[in-house]
């Protein structure tokens, strides 16, 4: 099956497969970063591959290596009952194409990878933090993020701005904030 998949990939684009990686049981391909979306499109739409299910998308931080981040795609073909793992290397500060328009399921896992590793997915419609709050500094799953790092305090966010018109009764906290009392 792996040979067939590789053949299909080579048919559409030359040299996208940088190599095969030995892994127990699972077949694993290293893909060139810039072509990842085209590869995924082929893998999903080509009936010979038919990887309709994006099982998981994650990232491994290889701190100290040239291309630091390794984005890992776990694919599954229900019709062929076959698992395939794709890997693509992303250097720090560069971006990789999003696959969220191939599988919509990638929308939120890519957000998580962005949140945890700071990998930029180009073309993602809403690349915001998903697990952490917006003011979080750094990316928690990077290897250079210390386990017990403390985060700075975040100023209190109000869902509603206190209104000025008299019948609106401010809560005690809103009034305090209006008067600038709780800026610590």
């Amino acid at each position, binding site marked *: 099956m792996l040979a067939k998949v590789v053949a299909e990939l080579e048919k559409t684009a030359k040299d996208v497969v940088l190599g095969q990686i030995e892994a127990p049981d699972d077949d694993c391909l290293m893909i060139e970063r810039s072509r990842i979306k085209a590869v995924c499109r082929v893998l999903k739409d080509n009936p010979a591959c038919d990887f309709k299910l994006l*099982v998981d998308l994650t990232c491994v931080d290889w701190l100290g290596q040239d291309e630091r981040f390794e984005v890992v795609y*776990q694919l599954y073909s229900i019709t062929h009952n076959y698992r395939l793992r794709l890997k693509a290397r992303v250097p720090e500060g560069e971006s990789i194409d999003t696959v969220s328009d191939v599988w*919509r*399921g990638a929308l*939120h*896992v890519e957000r998580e990878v962005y949140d*945890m590793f700071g990998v930029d997915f180009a073309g993602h419609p809403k690349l915001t933090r998903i697990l952490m709050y917006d003011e979080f500094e750094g990316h928690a799953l990077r290897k250079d993020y210390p*386990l017990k790092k403390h985060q700075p305090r975040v100023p209190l966010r109000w869902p509603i701005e206190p209104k000025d018109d008299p019948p609106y009764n401010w809560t005690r906290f809103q009034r305090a904030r209006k008067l600038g009392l709780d800026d610590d």
Partner: protein
Amino acid sequence: MSEPRQDPQVKRLPDDVMDIQLGPSHPAMHGIIKLDTKLSGETVVDMEVSMGYLHRAFEKMCEHRDWNQNVVFTDRLNYCSAAANNCAYMSAVEKLAGIELPARAQWMRVIVSELSRVADHLTCVAASVMELGGLSVYLYLIEAREEIYMIFDKICGSRLTHSVARVGGMAYDLYDGFEDDIERVFALTRKFMDQGHVMLTRNRIFYDRMRDTGTVSEADAIDFGFTGPVLRSTGCAYDIRKAMPYWTYDQVEFDVPTGERGDNYDRYLIRMEEMEQAMRIVEQAIEKIPEGDVFVHDYKIFVPPKKETYNHIEGLIHHFELVMNGPQIKAGDAYFAIESPNGEHGYYVVSEGGGMPYRVRARPTCMPMTMFFPEMVKGSMIADIIPTFGSINMIGGELER
């Protein structure tokens, strides 16, 4: 047609959409999750899910513990089926290390993960029924679940956080009289499930609430990355136990129920049937489980018996090495997935060699379901949020890890 009379004194009441936040603290959001909902009357116009209230840095912590210690974190992912998570994580590590388990350990993993499937489905069905107002059925099913937890209590000493698995086997063997307990508890579970069927399955109110609500099509479900009962309710029979049998699932007979419409009622029926099938698997497994040990006899992987540790220097050293440094796993990566009660629960483990993982990634089973929840309820009524959210079985601990 004449213009309606406009009284300048009368201020027009706003009829635009109302923003309402369901959660983070809301009786129907079983974890802590916030649904920013836009309502037009009672109809849901738009919804956005925001999560992150329960993030506990599971993956980060895993990188700083040895392979065996991480098992207690996996307990706390989907806490309704902790044993299945333990076994899945350990099987991923064993796959990476190339360890072949003895048959009894594999059978035992099947047994505990099927037991936890029954417990998980009981919880899920019970909770979603409770939110529909049927508190009585909730307590019936929870009573059955409690009995299953008591079996786990006897196996491993804790009701909820089992930690039954280790690298290279199981930490505990089945106890004497396990078969009798299973027989008694399954009889009880079936009794309570029958009561649930009587009170729910043919109940007109329940049927109307569940049928054709929270519908998702098969193509959408696959595209979103749904697995488990929610995917099977759409008609796609993807079940890893059948597709790629792991452990000893190829030696037992069971059916994979699928639905037709992909709605809440199908999901409910599938869960009820899967419990029946899980009990069937356990009953077969009890007949087929061989005698022997539940761990590999490799002191580099699994701690030697206490007799060895106390009486032989070899055993002592191995014990010390395993406790202090953890089992040494060769470099590489592996992905191992089980059909957890909620869907495909996979672990992607990366090792640099050594006693600690370089990276552990747990596939959050309910995350696709939760994040695409708006697609399932848009256009339906606010009351439909409740059974739909119950039927996707969002578990906060697993969603945000």
